[in-house]
């Protein structure tokens, strides 16, 4: 007589060159190369790629993929709501909010009495531009470790924006150029600026227009946004202005149209002074869409997981912490996810 045993976690999800694979369900989570069936946690380009046969993701993630890659980014798409469960080849799959960017989700995969949560990228700090993270009890918790070192503790984001606005008042003749990733961070920064009571127009780089408009459509109020690409030659127009662009835009010739810019960069990496110095950042804003060290370790405890798999980032420190806490842990060594993207 076979004795009933819960499925071994590694038989439910395992790392493959294309990404995290579920053999019984025959699907991948956030695959880095085209596959027949993909479940996507969120719209950042290292997690959401074009060319899959079938994509299951939240409606907002699907919208974002369509905006970035065009409507034909996948053979077939299926939207799923937060909290909704669908069955894929007998494996039940539920999406829960991850608090990372608009539409971001953790994916709970359950089969044969074993539940694994693949959390994608996530954060616990409140963010007015997306649904808050929801801890899900599970046997195995798969976590990122982008900021998986005790040195990373993100401060209150409102205080960071407070420093930006103080500097704007202190240097009224200069423009403040805020580097922020195009999906999520940029809109969060805009929203934080609005919440701090700043109601003058914000100037944005062309690369942010589509996604910012989408956020506004989805009910995230970002106030008046103006293109920073107009008014060539009229430098003085931008004195005292806040200009938001992608980080790469500021190293570009594009940046020259602004008067004596104060370069700011909104990222969790800005916690480390040398990082700021290397990039020539004058005003680092420590605002991250990833969990800091305390959020990572608190979340692991909250999920009640007896085993933790670490996908990308500084795995060794988080694995060490789990060992000290008596939780089994290993690094998955998945390749293809950007460590730097924040």
């Amino acid at each position: 007589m076979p004795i009933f045993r819960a499925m071994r976690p590694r038989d439910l999800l395992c790392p493959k060159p294309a990404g995290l694979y579920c053999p019984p369900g025959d699907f991948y989570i956030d695959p880095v190369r085209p596959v027949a069936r993909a479940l996507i946690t969120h719209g950042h380009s290292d997690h959401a790629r074009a060319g899959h046969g079938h994509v299951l993701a939240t409606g907002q993630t699907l919208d974002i993929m369509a905006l970035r890659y065009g409507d034909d980014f996948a053979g077939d798409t299926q939207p799923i709501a937060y909290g909704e469960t669908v069955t894929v080849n007998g494996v039940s799959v539920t999406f829960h909010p991850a608090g990372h960017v608009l539409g971001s989700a953790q994916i709970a995969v359950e089969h044969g009495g074993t539940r694994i949560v693949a959390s994608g990228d996530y954060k616990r700090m409140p963010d007015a531009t997306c649904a808050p993270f929801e801890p899900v009890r599970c046997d195995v918790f798969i976590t990122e470790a982008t900021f998986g070192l005790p040195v990373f503790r993100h401060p209150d984001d409102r205080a960071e924006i407070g420093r930006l606005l103080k500097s704007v008042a202190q240097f009224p003749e200069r423009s403040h150029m805020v580097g922020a990733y195009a999906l999520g961070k940029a809109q969060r920064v805009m929203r934080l600026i609005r919440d701090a009571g700043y109601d003058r127009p914000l100037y944005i780089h062309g690369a942010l227009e589509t996604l910012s408009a989408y956020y506004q459509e989805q009910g995230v109020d970002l106030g008046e946004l103006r293109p920073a690409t107009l008014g060539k030659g009229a430098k003085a127009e931008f004195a005292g202005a806040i200009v938001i662009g992608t980080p790469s835009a500021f190293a570009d010739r594009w940046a020259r149209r602004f008067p004596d810019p104060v370069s700011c960069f909104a990222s969790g990496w800005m916690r480390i002074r040398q990082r700021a110095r290397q990039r020539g950042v004058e005003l680092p804003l420590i605002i991250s869409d990833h969990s800091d060290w305390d959020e990572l370790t608190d979340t692991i405890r909250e999920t009640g997981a007896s085993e933790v798999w670490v996908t990308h980032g500084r795995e060794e420190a988080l694995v060490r912490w789990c060992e000290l806490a008596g939780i089994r842990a290993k690094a998955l060594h998945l390749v293809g996810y950007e460590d730097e993207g924040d």
Partner: protein
Amino acid sequence: MNRFAELLDRLVLTPSRNGKLTLLVDYFRAVEDPDRGLALAAITGDLTIAAVKPAMLRALVTERMDPVLFGYSYDYVGDLAETVSLVWPEAEPSDSSHDPTLAEVVQALQSASRSDGPRVLAALLDAADVSARFAIIKLVTGGLRIGVTARLAKQALADFGKVDVAEIEELWHGLEPPYRPLFAWLEGKAPKPEKLAAALFRPVMLSNPVEDRDLEKLDPADYAAEWKWDGIRVQVVSERGVRRLYSRTGDDVSGAFPDLVRAVDFEAVLDGELLVGRPPEWTGTFSDLQQRLNRKSVSPKIQSEFPAFVRCYDLLQLGEEDTRELPLAQRRTKLETLVASLDPTRFDLSPQVAFSDWPALDALRTHPPHPIIEGVMIKRHDSPYLAGRPKGPWFKWKRDPFTVDAVLMYAQRGHGKRSSYYSDFTFGVWSGPEDATELVPVGKAYFGFTDEELRQLDKYVRDNTIERFGPVRSVRADRQQGLVLEIAFEGLNRSTRHRSGVAMRFPRISRLRWDKPAAEADRIETLTAMLD
């Protein structure tokens, strides 16, 4: 404490001088006594706090966290003070906790006994937030390293109080942290503090460079000329038994030159050039002088190998008499008499150079008799000694700079206004045997070009990049292709830190040689031949 911590965080990343001044002035305006004065003292290096050793800091933190996790963290961050400030366990916020002031922190640190030190430091770190922790650790490990000189801090005080920086410099050494009377005066709430202390610094008189046609209008008979020595400008002050050696900007540098200070046995204030050597037969080069600069302590060996002396050219005070109002000719006479009575190995007189007309002086300037002469000084006989850089009485007329044709090798993005431009350029000259020459870097320059030339250079870098390393790009530079830059510089030192073995003084890009093939740029031998 948090405002001080924020100030440090901003200063360290603000490249522009004006930006730093704004931050400092705003801080002095917003923060009350005694915190602002203590911050000022911390920046100027006038705050005395018993130093904490890195090993002790490390011990404190590893008592509080897993040493392995600390090790990973330190490896990643690379700076001990910063790592400790980041990983220090956050205390639970309680209602009774209040944000400690800088004064409270300094008071706690200064009054801690040796055995008590670690406990006091730990308690302060427990009560502080992450920025404040960094600031506290910087205070106790010594050396803020925030790119603000004492001179810049004094300029900020001058801007804050709308007074001339010379007034601050003159008062400075008579004042003590937290400088309440100084701030009260700068805010117009009290009269100017009296100069009570002895041996204060006197603001120095500076010259203007000779520009085209400046001299045509001047009568050579009104002027005296002297050699311009390539040492460092110093002021020797001896009053009521207090002896000090000041740099041009009023920094007290006595500690580095005990041999010289010992020889001060007069009551006067002298202005002159600090050099090394044994006058009159041997005057050392600038490289020799560098053996004595930027040292905390000087060994007897270095003192005897490179003895310091002052080549005097002006007299600001003699006994009780302030001579600054007297015309130069009279000061000079008094100076000659005084110097004749001093230790000749430590003080000699900068000789005046006779000349009949400007072309004759020009010939002397371009062919000076000694390698450590970098031109001539021209001073009006009737000029009083005035603080600052008045236009007219004094001129400096330097010999032409050296030039070398080098090839552009690397470019780095600039800061602030120049953050979108590749504006810091590393250049090299050819070295090695004729059949296998390679470029060896000899220097880095980030000025000398016009805005239009910067645009051209930036475009060249972007169009010819072969590799990128963060903010740095390497550009194509070989025998067939490369951009030749004419580099002007003031002198050359031997260097063990650079592969080329030479370090340029004050290099700048004087011309872009679009016309010159890279293979025809200079070889390293051209430079090494210039070393003495």
